[in-house]
Structures are given as structure tokens and as C-alpha cells.
């Protein structure tokens, strides 16, 4: 076994001495990384990747040397150095950039020259864009409906799976697959299942003698016709069409098992005493659910709610896979990508990104509120 670990001793000492006390493996590794980093600078490859990789390798060497010299001094700050640099580079820097972009008139045309200051003009233009209004309503509806469906179905699923029965472990394995599955593959698969050509649902409906449903279109839902003259307007504004239903089914199918998993873990962590007491008092299953399970589970319900809320606000891939950039199915996230990268209108795209970020910040606020309440209890 090696005698020395990553650093030499408890107190700081000059580098050569500290270096002598580290393990030979570590010394060799450091030397190799340093050589690789230096060597990379002279390789004839593109500048960007070369500087990035060589820089990271040399940083690693410097970091290890610094740890060796400092020992335990300032170790708590030394440990967060890599993650702080990384987080700063990939969150703080882009966010500052985003704010700057959102207040300037920047498009592909003038990106390399001067950016005129635009004040709030980019934000104002969002208000006049009917697509933004549509995407806003759609995002809200998509999030709300999915959230409610998944919470309710996930909870019922947890109650069902909480019982012990034969084949339970097989079913719980099956339910784990969608949680880990690639969202884009799930969406492509559902796009096929919903499709007109060999789609499973319409095949099964056909067997039952039902006319095929135009799932992947914005055909209004059947009941809209009965709403009279307000029908078409409602269908258009509130997305009362089959395509939107298909979007919701896809997301709810993939993520209900995740909600169920969280609820099941929450249920199994509940104390047993109240249930025993209820049984002695002869409470019905409904009473047990209403007066014991739900109140005890409230903190978990809150956390699950926020986790799903945040994830639903992130959704891009599933909607893209089912409808691409189709105007009638765009959510805010898709509109950002179309505006900012498709149309190369960076300023307006950045303004829209800021709006979505603010929406998320409200969710963060909510989450922290939940956390504080949990700590207070």
C-alpha cells in the first residue's frame, strides 16, 4: 500500500519537500498530464479546442501542485475552486452575455460591427409578436395540465404499487424504463404510434370500429363544434386540438412513473404509528388517505410539484420531435431557438430567454419557500 496520499503533510512546506512525499503514481500522472498539456499547444489542430484542452490540462497540474503545497490550509476553499470556475464559465458568463444582448439590437447582420443600444425595445417587440402570446399560453397550459395529470396519476400509481403482490418487482422495473429513457426517442416513438401510417392507436381504434383520429394535426377536438361561434376562437387560443392532446399524452406517459417513484419513496418513509392507531379506531381506507396519508405527505407533494414544474418549463425536445418548429405548436423554449438561432435575431431571442428565466426564477422562489417551510417544521 502506498504511504502517502494526495498531499504531503498537515502543514504547508516548500514545494520540493512536499513533492517528495507524494506517491510515485501521482507524481508520474502529474508529469504526464503536464507533458500532454504542453505538447498539445504545438499540435496542428484548430485553435479553439487546442487552447481549451491544453488549458484545462495545465490547470489540473497547477491545481494538484497547489493542493500539495497548501496541504490543509484553506482546503475548504481549494475544494470548490474547480466547480466555481466551471460554474462561472458556463452560467454566470452566458447570463451576463444574455443580459447585454437583450438590451441591444444585435442580429446576424451587425454582430461583428457596432451594436446600437435598444433599451427595452427587444422586450417591447415580444409584446407585439402574436407568436409569443400563443407560445406563452401554450407553455402555461402544457405545464399546468401535465403537472396536474402527472401528480394525480403518479400518486394513484404509488398507492397501487405500495401493496405487495406477485410480479411487483417486474412492474416496478418496467416503470423505471421511461424515467431513464431518452426523451427524443420517446417522442419519436409516440409520433409513430400517433401517426396516420401504421400508427398503433389508429390501428387499434380501427379494430374497434372507430374512425381514425388526426392526432398529429391541429384539428379541433370534437366537442369544440358544439360550442357555437366561439368554438373556433377557443380552439385556436386555448389549443383545443388533437396535436396538443398528443403532446400532453407523450410527456405524461414518460414522467408519471417518475412522480410515482418519488411518491412511493415518500409513502414508505412515513411513520407507521398513525396507521396502527387508525386501524384500531376502525377508520375506512378513504379516511386513512384523507386524514393521515395526505397531510403527512404534504412536504413530499410540495417538492415533487416543484421538481416537475421546473422540468416541464425545460421541455424542448419532445415538442420538437412531434411537431418540429410548427407555428401552431410552439412553446416559449422552441420560440427562443427559432428566433435566436433560426432567424439569427440574437437581441430579441435574448430578451425572450430573459423572460423565460424570470418565469423560472419565480419557481425557484417558490422552491426556496418550500425549503424554508420544511426546515421550520
Amino acid at each position, binding site marked *: 500500500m502506498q504511504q502517502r496520499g494526495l498531499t504531503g503533510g498537515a502543514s504547508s512546506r516548500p514545494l520540493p519537500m512536499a513533492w517528495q512525499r507524494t506517491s510515485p503514481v501521482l507524481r508520474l500522472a502529474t508529469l504526464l498530464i503536464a507533458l500532454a498539456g504542453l505538447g498539445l499547444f504545438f499540435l496542428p489542430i484548430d485553435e479553439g479546442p487546442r487552447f481549451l484542452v491544453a488549458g484545462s490540462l495545465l490547470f489540473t497540474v497547477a491545481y494538484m501542485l497547489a493542493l500539495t503545497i497548501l496541504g490543509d490550509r484553506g482546503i475548504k476553499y481549494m475544494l470548490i475552486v474547480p466547480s466555481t470556475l466551471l460554474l462561472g464559465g*458556463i452560467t454566470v458568463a452566458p447570463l451576463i452575455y444574455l443580459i447585454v444582448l437583450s438590451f441591444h439590437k444585435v442580429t446576424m447582420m451587425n454582430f461583428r460591427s457596432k451594436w446600437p443600444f435598444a433599451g427595452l425595445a427587444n422586450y417591447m417587440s415580444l409584446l407585439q409578436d402574436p407568436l409569443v402570446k400563443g407560445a406563452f399560453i401554450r407553455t402555461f397550459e402544457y405545464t399546468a395540465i401535465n403537472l396536474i395529470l402527472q401528480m394525480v396519476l403518479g400518486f394513484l400509481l404509488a398507492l*397501487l404499487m405500495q401493496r405487495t403482490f406477485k410480479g411487483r418487482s417486474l412492474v416496478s422495473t418496467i416503470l423505471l424504463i421511461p424515467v431513464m429513457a431518452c426523451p427524443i426517442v420517446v417522442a419519436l416513438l409516440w409520433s409513430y404510434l400517433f401517426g396516420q401510417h401504421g400508427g398503433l392507436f389508429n*390501428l387499434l381504434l380501427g379494430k374497434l370500429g372507430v374512425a381514425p383520429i388526426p392526432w398529429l394535426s391541429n384539428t379541433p377536438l370534437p366537442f369544440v363544434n358544439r360550442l357555437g361561434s366561439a368554438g373556433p376562437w377557443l380552439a385556436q387560443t386555448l389549443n383545443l386540438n388533437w396535436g396538443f392532446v398528443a403532446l400532453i399524452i407523450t410527456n405524461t406517459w414518460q414522467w408519471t412513473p417518475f412522480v410515482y417513484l418519488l411518491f412511493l419513496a415518500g409513502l414508505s418513509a412515513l411513520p407507521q404509528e398513525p396507521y396502527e392507531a387508525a386501524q384500531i379506531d376502525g377508520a375506512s381506507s378513504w379516511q386513512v388517505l384523507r386524514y393521515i396519508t395526505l397531510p403527512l405527505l404534504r412536504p413530499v407533494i410540495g417538492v415533487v410539484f416543484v421538481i416537475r414544474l421546473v422540468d416541464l418549463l425545460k421541455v424542448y425536445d419532445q415538442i420538437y420531435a412531434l411537431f418540429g418548429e410548427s407555428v401552431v405548436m410552439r412553446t416559449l423554449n422552441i420560440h427562443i431557438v427559432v428566433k435566436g438561432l433560426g432567424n439569427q435575431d440574437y437581441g430579441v431571442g435574448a430578451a425572450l430567454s430573459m423572460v423565460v428565466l424570470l418565469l423560472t426564477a419565480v419557481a425557484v422562489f417558490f422552491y426556496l419557500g418550500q425549503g424554508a417551510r420544511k426546515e421550520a417544521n
Partner: protein
Amino acid sequence: MGGDSGWRLILNYFLVVIVAVVWVVPFAWMVLSSLKPGDMIIDPRLILWFRPTLEHYRTVFLSHDFPRYLVNSLAVSGGTTLLTVFAGTLAAYSLSRFRTGGRLYANWVLFTRLVPPAVLVIPFYLMFRAMGLINTVWALILADCTISLSFVIWTMRGFFDEIPTELEEAAMIDGCTKLQSLWRVTLPLVRPGLVATVIFTLLFTWNEFLYGQTLGIAPSAKTLPVAAGDYVTGYANNWGPVFATGTVIMLPVLVVVFFLQKQIVRGLTLGAIK
């Protein structure tokens, strides 16, 4: 809970069977369809019995840039995992043991986890273009770190919190430095958690689509999910290769689900229940 009468038991099993069917059939249908001859996939009849063919897998593996996409996917998820697990575990240890940075740092990490990836797409695109990283796997590795670094810090902090500090203190009395006690005492103890975190990070980046589609669509950086998504645009009924690619993407997921179920459930539920 209550006496299970016969009817209740039957109802219970009935519901369980429905649940199993609802969540198995779509995936089974995908795998089945990937083995069907092309014209049968879009046949307007329900075909369950057919002679399986590997033609779509052959098409995907041979005529497209599939091996390259596979290597890109592996490089992106491997690179991101290496970077974020290294940086994230050290930070998580510091946050767990010394509360470094207090609430501010913890909230910053949490906030990063909540930002929708679409929000960062425009600045990432412009920054990486300026750095000459567009259409390289490096851009995807850096971008994917936004998703996984905060996840690693948050999850590993939870695992470190569960390990009592007495063991480390004993190691330090025996002459270990803080870093040595982390390396020799604490890390072996959190190994199950670390394994779960590594698997999650690998799978999240393996499944990632948005950054792949915006920052690396050239063959030099295209990942498998983006390649599968390519078939979306054409309304051509080219489902065979889609499902072959999809099945390949799902393979590691299935392996993980079947063999590491316990760790995954623990990792998924840790943050929510504590």
C-alpha cells in the same frame, strides 16, 4: 391495509396489468418495428407475426455516419461525466463538511439546476462560435456541464451528509490530512452514491438533445439523439432507421435499469424525500 377481499385483489391485479401494458407496449412496439421489413412498418394493418430482419440496423450501421455519432455520443457523455464528477464531488464534500460559501453558494448551484437549457442556447452559440468550438464535442461537453455539474454537487452533498464525520476525525488523528481522509475513508463509504451519480450523469448527457442540435449538428460533433431527430423533418415514412437508432440509444438505459435498479431509485428519490 384493510382485509383484502377477493374482489379487491382481482381489481388490484387488473389495474396492475393495465399499468404494465401501458408502459411496456410502446417500447416493445418500437423494438418490434425496428425488426420489421420497411413496408410492413407503415402497413395499415396490425401485423404482429412476421419474419424479423436486421436490414434497418444494417442501414444505420453501414450507410450513415453512425459509428462516428456513436463515438461523439460516448465522448460527450464520458467527457462531461469526468469533468463534472471530479469538480462536483470535491465541491460537494466542501459544502457538506464546511458549509463553504453558505446559503449563497448552495443557492447558486440550485439555481443552475433550474435554468431551462433553451435560455442559455443563444449565448452558448455565440460564445462557442467566437472560441471556434462550434461543431466540436468540446462545446457539447461544456454546455452539458450546466445540466450535470449542479446535479453532481447537489446529489453528492446529500450522500456526504449521510456519512458521519467521526470516521474522518479518527483518520486525521492518525495523521491523515483532510484530503487523505476524504480519499481513503469517505470516498470508499460513498461509493454506491458515487456510482449512481456517475450513471445518472452518463445517461443525462447520453440523452441530451437541445445542445446537441444547436451547437453540434455537423458530423464532427453530432450525437445519436440528434441523428435520430434528423428523421423528424422529412415526413417520409423512414421509421426503420429511426427505431434502429432509438433501440441503440435505449440499450445502455435498459442495461442500467435492469442491473442497477436499487441505486437508481435511491439516487432519484434522495433529493425529494430528505
